[in-house]
Every structure is written in C-alpha cells, then in structure tokens.
C-alpha cells in the first residue's frame, strides 16, 4: 500500500511541530475572515449560514426535471437548486438535430430554449434560493438570458436572483461536451461576465476543477489550473473589457471535487483559498477583502463511486461530505451511490441529501470553523500541496498562460498522465479500493439497488416536441432578432453580444440557432457537427 499523497509526496507516520516550523499564523494562516483566508471567509463559519445542501437535478423533459426539483425540495433541499444540462444542450445542438434526438434529456435537462426554462421553473421561485445551472460554456450566455427574461416576465428584479449560470470555457478539454472553438468560447464567456458585472447581478461563473479531477487530474495540478484559469480569465476582464478587479469579486466560483483521501482533500481546499487570496492581492492589487475571496462549492467525487458493491458508496459519500464540510465551503452536491450506474434514483438522491443533513445536524461540524487548523499534519499538507501547485503553475505561465498551455496540449497531457498513473496504481494494488481490488465478491452476490432508467422514447418525445414547437413561434420576430444578432456578431471580438442574445432568447430562439449564427458570423460552420445547415437567410 502506498503511503503517499495523490501526487507522490511521501507521508510519514507522525507529524510534529517541526514539520510546520516557520509557519506564521497571522501571515500564512489567518483567522477565518482574515487574509489570506486559509481558514475560510466568515468568522462565524457555518453558524452564519450552513452550506447549501443540494442534489444535482436534470433528467428527461423539462417538466420531468421540474417534478424532480420539487421532490428534492420535499427531501430537505430548500436553499438552492442545481440543474445540469444534457449533452445536446452542452454542444449546443437542439433536440431536433439528427444527433440531438438520440440524447435529449438523457443525463441532464434539455436547456435549449426559454420555453424549456419556463417549464423547468414552473412554481419554483427565482429568488430566495440559489439558482445554479451547470453545463457547458457556450450555453452560459443563453442561461443568463433565460434568467433575465423570466425575471422580467415574473416582475422580479434581476438583481435579486443569485446563483450561477455561467461556466468556464475550458470544459471541452476536460471531457465535457462543449464544442465551440476556444476563442469563441472565451469571447462569449467574457461577454456574459462583463454583462453580469456592469449590471451588478449576483450571478457567478463557475471556473471548475471538478471536471479535470473527475477525469483523473491530481490535487496540485487542479490548484495550478484553477489559478491559471482565473488569472487568465479575470485578467481579460480587467485588461480587455476595462473592468475593475474589485468589481469582479462576485464572479468566480469553483466547484472542487472532494475525494476520499480525507486530509489531503481538506488541505487542497485550504490551499486554494490562500492561493486565490495571494493572486488577488499580488497580481491584481485587490483593494477589498471580498475580492480576495473565491466562492468554493464541493462536489463529492464521482470517480470514487464504485460499480461493485454500490452500497459501500454511501460510506464513501459520507466521508467525502464530512471532508467538504470541514474544509469549509458554500455548498455541497453529492455523487450518489448509484453514480457508476445511471442518473440518481430517488432512493440514492434521498440517501445523499440525508447524508448531508446527518453531517450538518448530527456531527457538530457546524459549531466550529476550520477545526483542523493547527494540526501539524494538515497545515503541512496545505503548505506542500500549495508548493507543488506553484511549480506547475510556473510551467503554465512559462508557456504563456492557460490558453497557450491548452493549445499546446500541456493540460490534456497532465490529465492523461495522471489518469494513467491512477489506473496503474489500482491495477498493481498500490492503492486499494474495497470491492474492486480487495474484498471482491462475485457479481451474483452483489447488492441489488434500484436503478433510474431513461427511456429512449423520452428523447424522441423531446425532439418531436421541439420540432413542432419551433414552427409555432413568432417567426418574423425571431428572424429579426437573429439577423440583429448575426450583425452584432460580425462587429468583432470586443462587441458584447449579451443584449442581442437576450433579445433572441426572448423571441424564443434556441441554443442551436443562437450559437449557430454566432458561429457562422465567425466563419465556422453553423452546426458544430456539420450535419445541418443554417435555416436563416443571413
């Protein structure tokens, strides 16, 4: 069995004050709520507000997802909703696209139009809870449009809606289904976040390492990539869009994957807070405390959920939830016990939400902030993972930053090598996984659990409905708004497309159509899969 961290640092049997000699509490750690925020952002921690306990929603048609969200609410999820979109929406292509109809509503909500959003949110309030819509960068601008449009329809002030609907433009590198050329992805991200900042909306943008780590990346790599992404993206907002860094405080949030190596995961989150604070002050000369704070949410790791003996995953999820809670975060969503099989069944969803409530209500973890601070081992791990992360960050910066590193394939290589390494460790038995390479039981004797199925017919239904509905829209209005969008898109990289995207969204333009004409304006094929042609005459 390997006695090393996930990045190969040797772990000793005992840690003593010597291992953290030189650690200056005020300078390096700080009280909760004080720079460099290693211990967290709120002096009262969870006593002010417990983390949002939520489950990822998104299955089948918008109506079905709506029911699911209501179910979760009944199970105790009252602080916020989290909905992930399906693969067609992520690209984006519409449900009625030849390749869309096979996968619409599978693994997520089909997020391609305002109509779908309206159905998703029926009888669900836009305010009073956080609204988080996840999944793919290209869709960020549209989701922002949906929120603005629905808020207007409901007579709600946009500024009262809080949550996150925007996502970082690098997802494609980490295995997510966005299929927009990187430069265009970045431009749309800049447009939507600039819109958010200038309109003082409380809507954040997810700059995530979850996907990277779920594909196999290790902890210091994740930290380096997070800081590199933030530096580059926030840097562009400052340098290219003329925004003030302190106004950007409300933009970024990170969804970090928390795995089973309990202490390392806690150290990772603490290091991240410190690294972000330092970046804010040193690179961007942040003036306020708020601008040095990165909102961090936790996703318990899907990668650790095994196919074999799925009930074991309840224990895994509990350990990871506890780690996330101790590390300090603003929200936790769980990968469920049946993660290796399918979308969460109600049984699995309830289990996960209960786990969160057990941790928050029965363990006392909400009584004290950053309880492991001062532990020789944990402070040591925090220092070390940060040190290692800076080495990798330096490599990225030497290449010219995150975007260059992506283009040169460096990031993909990190992920690939790390994934290969982890696979080898399991195969050789250096890392043990119960049920997989130890204490294995024959499949016949394995746990039987209820499994959520999605019928292929659901996808077809969503596709047919979309095809028919498209014809019933106010076509002249739509054409007008699409033409305006196309013209605006041709005005160049720095022309913010949010206003015209929002108008197109209100006219019920779909994701495939809106992103399609933007693609066309930039010289790309309308359809990311090059199978269908632009239906508009432009």
């Amino acid at each position, binding site marked *: 069995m390997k006695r090393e961290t996930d990045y190969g640092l040797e772990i000793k049997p005992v840690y003593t004050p010597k291992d953290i000699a030189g650690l200056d509490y005020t300078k390096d750690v700080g009280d909760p709520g004080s720079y460099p925020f290693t211990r967290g952002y709120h002096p009262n921690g969870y006593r002010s507000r417990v983390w949002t306990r939520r489950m990822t929603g998104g299955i089948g048609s918008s109506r079905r997802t709506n029911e699911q969200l209501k179910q979760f609410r009944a199970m105790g999820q009252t602080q916020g909703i989290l909905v992930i979109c399906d693969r067609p929406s992520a690209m984006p292509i519409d449900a009625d696209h030849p390749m869309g109809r096979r996968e619409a509503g599978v693994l997520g909500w089909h997020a391609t139009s305002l109509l779908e959003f309206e159905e998703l949110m029926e009888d669900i309030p836009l305010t009073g809870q956080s609204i988080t819509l996840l999944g793919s960068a290209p869709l960020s601008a549209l989701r922002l449009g949906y929120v603005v449009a629905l808020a207007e329809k409901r007579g709600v002030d946009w500024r009262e809606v809080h949550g996150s609907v925007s996502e970082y433009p690098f997802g494609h590198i980490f295995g997510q289904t966005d299929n927009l*050329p990187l430069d265009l992805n970045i431009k749309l991200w800049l447009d939507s976040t600039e819109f958010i900042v200038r309109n003082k909306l409380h809507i954040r943008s997810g700059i995530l390492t979850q996907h990277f780590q779920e594909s196999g990346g290790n902890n210091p790599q994740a930290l380096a990539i997070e800081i590199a992404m933030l530096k580059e993206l926030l840097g562009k907002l400052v340098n290219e869009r003329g925004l003030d860094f302190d106004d950007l405080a409300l933009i970024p949030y990170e969804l970090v994957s928390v795995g089973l190596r309990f202490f390392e995961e806690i150290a990772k989150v603490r290091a991240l807070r410190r690294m972000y604070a330092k970046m804010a002050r040193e690179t961007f000369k942040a003036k306020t405390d708020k601008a040095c704070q990165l909102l961090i949410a936790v996703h318990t790791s899907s990668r650790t959920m095994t196919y074999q003996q799925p009930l074991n995953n309840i224990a895994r999820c509990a350990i990871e939830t506890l780690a996330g809670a101790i590390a300090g975060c603003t929200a936790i969503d769980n990968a469920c016990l049946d993660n290796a099989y399918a979308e969460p069944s109600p049984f699995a969803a309830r289990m996960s939400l209960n786990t969160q409530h057990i941790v928050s209500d029965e363990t006392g973890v909400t009584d004290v902030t950053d309880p492991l601070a001062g532990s020789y081992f944990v402070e040591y791990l925090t220092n070390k993972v940060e040190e290692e992360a800076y080495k990798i960050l330096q490599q990225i910066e030497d290449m010219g930053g995150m975007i260059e590193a992506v283009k*040169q*394939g460096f990031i993909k290589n990190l992920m690939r090598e790390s994934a290969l390494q982890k696979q080898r460790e399991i195969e050789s038995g250096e890392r043990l996984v119960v049920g997989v390479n130890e204490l294995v039981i024959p499949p016949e004797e394995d746990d039987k659990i209820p499994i959520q199925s999605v019928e292929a017919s659901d996808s077809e239904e969503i596709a047919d409905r979309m095809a028919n509905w498209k014809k019933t829209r106010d076509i002249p209005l739509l054409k007008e708004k699409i033409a305006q969008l196309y013209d605006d898109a041709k005005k160049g990289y720095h022309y913010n497309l949010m206003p015209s995207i929002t108008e197109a969204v209100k006219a019920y333009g779909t994701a495939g159509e809106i992103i399609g004409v933007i693609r066309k304006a930039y*010289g*790309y094929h309308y359809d990311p899969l*090059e199978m269908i042609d632009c239906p508009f005459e432009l």
Partner: protein
Amino acid sequence: MVNSIVEKIVNGDVRVVAKLIRDIDDGAPGTREILKALYRHTGNAYIIGITGAPGVGKSTLVDQMIQGLRMDGKTVGVLAVDPTSPLSGGAILGDRVRMQRHSLDEGVFIRSLATRGQFGGLTQSTRSVIDVLDAMGKDYIIVETVGVGQDEIDIAKSAHTTVIVVVPGMGDNIQAIKAGIFEVGDIFVINKSDRPDALNTMNDLKAMIDITRRRFKKEGWEPSILMAEAAINKGIVELLNEIEMHRKNRKTLSRETIIRHKKAIARNELTDMIKIRLVEEVLNHITNSLEFKKHLDCIVDGTKDPYSACDELLSAKLNLE
C-alpha cells in the same frame, strides 16, 4: 481468384481494398501476385505528400483538403501514417480523428498505417498501399506522414507534390529541421498563421529555401510558401490551386527531365523493394541461424571479434570473398 480481386478493387470495392491493405501490411502470402496484377491499373492518381513535425496541424489541413477536392467532384484516398512505438511495437493511429466527417462519403477512403519501424519512417508497404488506392480509381491520394526525420524525404520519392507544413514560432526548429526537407519540399505551408511570428517564419523559410536552391538547382519549379489557418478553412483553396500549378508545371518539363525523374523514382522503388527482400530472405535467415548464435557466444566470451564474425557469416551465406 486474383483476377476477381483485381476486378473488385478496380471497381472500388471498399471491403476488398481494406482487406488487401491489411494483408499487405501483415505480409500475408499471395499479396505479391495481386500487386503484380494491379500494377497496370495504376498511374492515374495524383499523389500529394503532406509532412511536418507533430502538432503543426497536418491532419486538420488534410481534412480541409479532402473537403475542397470533394467539392470539385474529385475522389480522394488518404493514407495517414503514424509511428510505431519502438518499445512495444504497438501504435496509436490518431490522424483519422480530424477527418472523420468524411467517413460516410463514398468518394473518400481513409486508411491509417503504422510505420512498423523498419527502414526509416515510411512504412515499407506504403508504396504498395498507394498503388492499391491508385488502382481503386482515386483521383487524388494524400499521404500524411509523421515528420520526425527521414520520412519527409522518403515520401517525396513517392509523391508527385510534396507539401511541408510548419507553424510559426518553430524558430530555431527551422534551422534544426533536417536539411533534406528543403530539397524535397515543393510547397511550404505555414499553418496557424494567425500566430504572431508568422512573418518571421516566412522569412526564415525563404532564406533556407534560397540556400538550398542555390546548391541544388531544382528544375523549373520555385518552392512556394503559403499561409493557412486550417482550423478555420483559411488558405486551403490557395493550397489546392498551388498544387494544381505544380502539377501543370510538371507537364511542362522537358521529356528528358521527365524520363530522368521517372527513372529516379523507379530506381528508388526497386532498390527499396530489393532492400526489403534482402532483409527478409537473407538477413533474417542469418540472424535466426545457429551459426549466428554461436558467433554471438564467441564475441561475448572474447574468443572472436565482431568484424571476423560478420565476414564469416556473410561469406558462408553469400559465397563472398
């Protein structure tokens, strides 16, 4: 049997072609007869070699070229060659990834090959495979190679037009690129030309080409340098036009020159074929023999030097002096 296979290939039967290429690659018996019979059906395709270092965007470029040629109504065969791992003997053939949108087009046949590490980069069977695609009736055959050394030069021997792809910022790499490239390149493409160093790269290339031309006086055609951004389909039309220009230029060469070129190509092809047969029949025979092993043991325990061992083995095998 052979005739029916030949007929099917000439009629474009994908399954039969695919199987034959596999058999050629694997060295299956009987392929030689088929290749002999196919030979008279070859000579119609125009062969374009695309080469350059890994990561310059060759496959993306080829993908766009296929699109351009198809829009002109031409059929295309593509051979994408990737290196065999010297350690494991396996390979990852990943060029097809960038061309998959053509996988359902009946006018396009794409095949990936591993170099299998014999005799320099270019797979020994590549020429045979090119012949098969030629006989199959493809108007154009694009051969994309790994670009890590001798390959670039090898491919030029089989191609009518050789295109070398570089990217800006390769900087000192241009000097480091094997000198032979500048002799064989007919067209140079600077891909990803939106990058800042593109003009510098163009100047560097011009300088290298000039030096080479002064030394080797390549007849008639002056190697051209084009800019492209294959990812957004920029510069492709120009590249295809330039290839057409080169093709036309070849026709204007004097008859003596054409015959000289053909002879050079034939010489290379025949010599390589003989080389390969020699290895298979003679070298492997020797290295697998008991005498060889005995000589090895002697060298290891110091009772024989390798020079004498070599002479003895060869004189026994070939009746040499």
